[in-house]
């Protein structure tokens, strides 16, 4: 009962935050566009049309066409699928790793905790994107490898947050009481610790999605992204750069898509943080 009202009051606080609402709506719109957009569009993302290459936006091609006559709107919509999928899947992988790692460190505590957190400390200083680049070079570009490379590198922040949260929860009276009543570890972990850590986890997850989208576009830009004819927003932006002088509109749409989605997820994440942690004052 108490839990429901906690989530409900968080939802209420979230809805009162206009930035977060706008961000949330844009996120929903982007997801909808990514799922349904390519179906509705009369064009495919790989079909060339040499009669209509490098055309500006028009009624038949809202976002124009590229150098092979492919419809840019369709490609941006497909790009949304790939970029959002990278954001979500990579973040989920990093959440699973981070929560498990941080959770174990925090719950077991003692020497295990010290050793595990020292590992996190050590990796924390290394610029992660270098690792990702290295992994992508070694394991060849491709969607699956992007998921894995990003997911396996970006979990450190999550591990730290979860570990801190678990450490402080573990010491609280209600957990102590539960333990005194003879509750098992599983019950304590799932019923009390995880449910109380969910807030920070959701916030970190939401904020790590734009980070992953950004990292993916960066990788695509230096040629380590998905391979043609598939294209993420980063690939589209990179392709457009070479023709920027003659066809600036080609950069505009993927660039706007990346920036707007980063903006939206950041708004939503900030809003969620404020809503889920009432004590946190901005």
């Amino acid at each position: 009962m108490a839990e429901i009202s906690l989530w409900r009051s968080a939802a209420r606080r979230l809805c009162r935050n206009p930035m977060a609402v706008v961000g949330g709506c844009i996120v929903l719109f982007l997801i909808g566009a990514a799922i349904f957009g390519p179906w509705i569009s009369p064009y495919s993302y790989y079909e060339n049309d040499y009669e209509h290459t490098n055309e500006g936006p028009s009624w038949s091609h809202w976002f124009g066409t590229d150098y092979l006559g492919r419809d840019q709107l369709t490609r941006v919509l497909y790009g949304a699928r790939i970029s959002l999928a990278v954001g979500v899947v990579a973040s989920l992988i990093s959440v699973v790793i981070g929560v498990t790692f941080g959770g174990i460190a925090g719950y077991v505590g003692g020497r295990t905790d010290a050793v595990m957190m020292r590992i996190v400390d050590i990796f924390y200083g290394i610029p992660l994107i270098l690792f990702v680049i290295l992994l992508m070079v070694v394991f060849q570009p491709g969607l699956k490898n992007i998921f894995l490379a990003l997911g396996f590198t970006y979990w450190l922040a999550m591990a730290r947050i979860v570990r801190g949260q678990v450490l402080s929860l573990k010491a609280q009276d209600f957990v102590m009481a539960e333990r005194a009543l003879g509750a098992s570890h599983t019950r304590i972990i799932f019923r009390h610790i995880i449910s109380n850590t969910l807030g920070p986890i959701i916030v970190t997850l939401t904020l790590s999605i734009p980070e992953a989208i950004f990292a993916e576009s960066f990788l695509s830009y230096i040629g380590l992204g998905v391979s043609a004819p598939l294209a993420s927003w980063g690939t589209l932006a990179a392709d457009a750069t070479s023709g920027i002088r003659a066809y600036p509109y080609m950069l505009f749409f993927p660039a706007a898509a990346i920036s707007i989605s980063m903006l939206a997820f950041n708004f939503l994440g900030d809003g969620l943080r404020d809503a889920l942690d009432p004590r946190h004052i901005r």
Partner: protein
Amino acid sequence: MLGYVLKRVGHLVIVIWIIITITFAMMHAIPGGPFDSERYVAEEIRAHIEARYRLDEPLYKQYLDYLWHVVQGDLGPSLTYEGRRVNDIIKDGFPKSALLGFISVLVSLLVGVPIGVYSALKHNRWQDHTVMLMAIVGVSVPSFILATLLVYYFGLKLQWLPAAGWGSVQQIVLPALALSGFSLAFITRLTRASMLDVMGQDYIRTAQAKGVAQGVILFRHALKNAILPVVTYLGPLIAAVFTGSFVVEKIFSIPGLGQFFVTSVANRDYTVILGVTVFYGTLLVTMNILVDLVYMFLDPRIVFHKQD
């Protein structure tokens, strides 16, 4: 204090060792990698590599050998450029990247901190909202997009500044702007938040109550404390600027290390990729630790909870 410094330096050594070990492992894991005989590599370079990496020796010997070379600062030959060593490439390109990076960091700080303070002083007024809106846009636009837009508008359309190249002062302006965009916005947000936090504290109210001039309160009392979070962000900031320079240098055709790195990635010039990774990794980790030490001197409170 000394113990803490020593601990951090020990940390540094471990991290660098891990970076070197990972790069070594990866170099040997790459299918079609530098040591694959199927791959076409110029005769001279192949002979070089075989001599250099002692491929006939057992793996652990190769590893120790590699480690020893890197410790001495020798990162090996390039795979695509005959007769060039990774060291030469770094020596050639890094000063340019470093200068560009330094200017970008400086711009982010010198512009971001004052704007952040200003925004905090105008808290919840339209100036504050405008600054925050721009800062949010700033952190949401990736550097390569900002760079391309700058090239297009100021370089090609308005022709105010050169769109590419390296050498003159004008040529630094646009890439430095592109590179500092994100960190500038981030520092603005950080400064504003921490300034708001500090300005609400009791000792500021005390100072105000006893009639200290507003300017003195601002600079001597508030800013001194509000700047601390910005200092902690310096490490990540430097890292962001250097990794950002990979694409920004490419867009502006700056012959720096960043552009070279991207070209090497495209060419799969593994020894250069790994060498530059080791170099940047070491550099940035060292920077991080330096920043931490500076922070410790600035904020005496930090020493008390070093014990964990």
